[in-house]
């Protein structure tokens, strides 16, 4: 994936990742955590993503970072998904925002780098409780990503 991204680090359990966003609001620590939802055939992981609060080191889901680096952050998350799914037994990644507007932000982000994402992944969007291959300008409530 030839997109500008931040360097990132992972825990030795290979489920938790971190990186720093940098922009007008300074450096913001970001966390990505994969949580298994199913046990097999296929294994599906939820992608959790958020800012780490400096105050208590917990994920702060209310903050809007607005660090003017959305596409770099998204490319970093895409690279993290690529690293995580490198093991072929890891089949699907599920993602949704914690609010409709946050889901819409994810959708805009995916749309903006869709061609790059499609080199490595198939992306589905959930609309009216049915999965369909992701298309631009369609509003989805969740996303499912599978490595090509």
């Amino acid at each position, binding site marked *: 994936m030839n997109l500008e991204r931040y360097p990132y680090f992972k*825990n030795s359990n290979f489920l938790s990742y971190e990186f720093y966003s940098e922009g007008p609001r300074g450096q913001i620590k970001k966390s990505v955590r994969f949580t298994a*939802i199913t046990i097999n055939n296929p294994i599906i992981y939820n992608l959790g993503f958020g800012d780490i609060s400096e105050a208590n080191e917990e994920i702060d889901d209310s903050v809007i970072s607005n660090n003017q680096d959305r596409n770099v952050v998204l490319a970093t998350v895409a690279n993290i998904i690529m690293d995580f799914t490198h093991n072929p037994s890891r089949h699907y990644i599920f993602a949704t925002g914690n609010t409709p507007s946050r889901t819409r932000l994810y959708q805009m982000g995916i749309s903006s780098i869709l061609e790059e994402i499609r080199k490595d992944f198939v992306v589905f969007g959930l609309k009216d409780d049915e999965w369909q291959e992701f298309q631009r300008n369609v509003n989805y409530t969740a996303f499912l990503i599978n490595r090509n």
Partner: protein
Amino acid sequence: MATIKREVNSASDPIVNNNVKDRGNDPYFIKKAEKAKEILQRVGIPGKKKLDFK
């Protein structure tokens, strides 16, 4: 604080770092995983409605 150098490459080269905290017990991530499970129980995945949940 030093400036973070952005990178462009196609190879994944993450560094394992034990300072990266495992946030599996963070309430936010637990809540998100529960929500994901609820949705997937209802809709399945493309071509498969019935899944084996944890």
